[in-house]
């Protein structure tokens, strides 16, 4: 007998959905037969049989959402303990259902859907907007962010490119000069390094170099930062790189509402905008307050109010900061968490205001520490709120190393919830 479990079919897949079984109980299968189609966080994949035998039991029916990786889904070969496996599966499923039904009265969408909706809504309003990038059209997006756009807007406006980042980034800049409003997707921002000359020298500087004549209304977007076990060349935060350059706006949302509202704002912005997403957040679901809200660029958000310490974060680090905050609250420590949402222009006023209340500051970012976003915030806070500080400012960042592949080393290299907890405890002890 062999029990087949829900496989991990992408680096970030934690759950999957069996969209269709291609075999029924009692069927004879041979190795290589396709058993099912499984929907992952990125694509629909086929599951093949590894062994020959009879399908004795299908443990999870098609359509059941969010089956955790590792959950038994089908048994091939006769065996009497399959009954037991079914029960296990049922338990797992009911657990998942519980998560799904929480707050079901409110609108809940994933960051992935929010981004797609933002683009679709803006494209419906303005014919000059088009999206271009690798696999954005027929494949529906390497991370499914552009799902359905080709069908709705056609190949004139949803364009698959060759693997040619410098070329299509430059093409986008030229199209923007020519009066269009391109959205250029990088499959990941790591590949934007191939195109960085076009982004900085051509997109960011031309308005200035032309004495204000030639703006470049363009959005460069895609996942930024570490994903999961994809190692050094595919895991890097570019917030600090792009924020360094005048002429660019840099946006990096955490929640689905902000992803949607800020992407809409970025598309409408007449300047080049670097829109940094996070692969690990794509599947995360958030309640949305107002579906049609445009979130202005340059405005941070207090996502949790508190009095003892201010914790500033952006993108995936906001979630980690909020979790740390809950742990700290158990010890009676009240943390104020600021989600920057936009890196540049930086909402320094919001940070200063909060620091004046809490007198202590911890800054979290996934990127490297040297010349990071944290460094810039520290410089500005000491300039504008030096007398309000009761302790040295602390940073929680990625380690100053290329991201390692091994699971344990990767975890050590990336900033974790516990690091935020420790940083907060550390600066509170400092003043005693």
């Amino acid at each position: 007998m062999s029990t087949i479990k829900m496989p991990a079919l992408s680096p970030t897949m934690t759950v999957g959905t069996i969209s269709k079984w291609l075999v029924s109980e009692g069927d004879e299968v041979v190795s290589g037969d396709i058993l099912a189609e499984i929907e992952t966080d990125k694509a629909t994949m086929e599951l093949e049989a590894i062994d020959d035998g009879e399908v004795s039991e299908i443990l999870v029916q098609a359509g059941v959402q969010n089956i955790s990786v590792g959950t038994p889904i089908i048994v091939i070969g006769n065996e009497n303990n399959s009954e037991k496996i079914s029960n296990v599966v049922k338990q797992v499923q009911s657990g998942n259902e519980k998560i799904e039904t929480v707050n079901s009265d409110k609108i809940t969408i994933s960051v992935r859907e929010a981004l797609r909706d933002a683009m679709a809504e803006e494209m419906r309003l303005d014919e000059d907007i088009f999206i271009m990038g690798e696999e954005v059209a027929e494949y529906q997006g390497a991370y499914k962010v552009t799902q359905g756009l080709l069908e709705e807007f056609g190949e004139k406006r949803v364009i698959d490119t060759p693997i040619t980042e410098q070329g299509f980034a430059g093409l986008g800049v030229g199209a923007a000069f020519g009066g269009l409003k391109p959205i250029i997707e990088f499959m990941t921002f790591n590949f934007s390094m191939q195109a960085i000359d076009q982004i900085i020298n051509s997109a960011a500087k031309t308005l200035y170099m032309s004495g204000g004549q030639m703006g470049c209304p363009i959005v460069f977007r895609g996942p930024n930062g570490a994903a999961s076990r994809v190692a050094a060349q595919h895991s890097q935060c570019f917030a600090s790189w792009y924020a360094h350059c005048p002429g660019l706006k840099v946006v990096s949302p955490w929640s689905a509402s902000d992803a949607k509202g800020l992407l809409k704002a970025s598309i409408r912005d007449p300047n080049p905008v670097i829109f940094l997403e996070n692969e690990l957040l794509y599947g995360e679901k958030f309640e949305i307050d107002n579906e049609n809200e445009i979130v202005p660029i340059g405005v941070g958000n207090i996502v949790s109010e508190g009095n003892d310490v201010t914790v500033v974060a952006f993108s995936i680090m906001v979630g980690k900061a909020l979790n740390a905050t809950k742990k700290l609250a158990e010890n009676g420590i009240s943390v104020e968490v600021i989600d920057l949402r936009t890196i540049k222009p930086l909402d320094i006023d919001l940070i200063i205001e909060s620091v004046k209340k809490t007198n202590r500051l911890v800054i979290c970012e996934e990127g490297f520490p040297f010349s990071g976003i944290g460094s810039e915030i520290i410089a500005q806070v000491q300039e504008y709120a030096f007398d309000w500080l009761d302790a040295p400012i602390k940073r929680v960042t990625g380690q100053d190393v290329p991201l390692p592949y091994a699971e344990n080393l990767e975890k050590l290299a990336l900033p974790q919830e516990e690091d935020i907890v420790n940083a907060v405890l550390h600066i509170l002890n400092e003043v005693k």
Partner: protein
Amino acid sequence: MVNSTKKNLKVKRKKTGRSVKGSYTNLPGKEELIELYKQMLLIRRFEEKAGQLYGMGSIGGFCHLYIGQEAVVVGMQSVSIDGDSVITSYRDHGHMLACGMDPKGVMAELTGRESGYSKGKGGSMHMFSKEKNFFGGHGIVGAQVPIGVGLAFSHNYKQDGFVCMTYLGDGAVNQGQVYESFNMSALWKLPVVFVIENNKYGMGTSVTRASAGKSLAERGKAYGIPGLEVDGMNIFSVRDAGKKALDYARKGKGPFILEMKTYRYRGHSMSDPAKYRTRSEVDAVRQQKDCIENLKEILQEQKITDDHLKKIDSEIKSNVSVASDFALDSSLPDKKELLTDIYI
């Protein structure tokens, strides 16, 4: 002195077997010939003045002169239509004048004045005029090529019937992004004409030492892009090839490559002593192939009087002086301009 030089020129021409007049059966009418002559002469005199102002310290930084190559951009521009877009790299003064930009504004930009096209913030290499469909003026070798393809993309997207003329030098043809651009423009049949201005030297390195293969016109072969080698010193050859290429692109057949064999008389930039070539090489081209002198002879054959030619010459000189005076009389940009035009 002048006469004897002329005589020599004629003899040399015979020796090389070139006959400017004989090559062209369809010369444009007199008026148009004069207009072409004026435009080339304007660029020549403008650049000479820019060279002088550089020597006087009124123009700073990098300054790349177009002297010698005038037939390329004037010829191309003369067969394009209003609405076609132009983009080039940093040897761009000639392109701007040929696009109809005001010499006063260009010179004022070269001298870093508030009345310059970029308010003094761009300089020689970074000037633009949306009004005249001139999209720069780009300082990074080859970077203008994908941008040009983007302009062509926008023409195609809007179906406006215009073509982007994307100029690049023989140095730029070895940049990777040029081939990314060839590929995408051919894949999507975008209306773009790549005009390679092969002036034989990419900065100080001759084409033969930098580029494999025989012909730059064939660099698009793998992508199915047709190419032509053109005598870029002869404005009529440029026009004939330009018409063909623009027509091809405008009909939706995709990109076209023109390799313009041309020559710059001056160094790569003002600070280049040009030790990589001999004086006699430069002189030979000047004497035998100069685009302006060639056209002047044709005009003479068309019975344009010496007086008329002299009048044109002094008219152009005076325009250039006006531009230079305008530039030098203009103020430096206001201090507050430092912090404007970074964001809209």
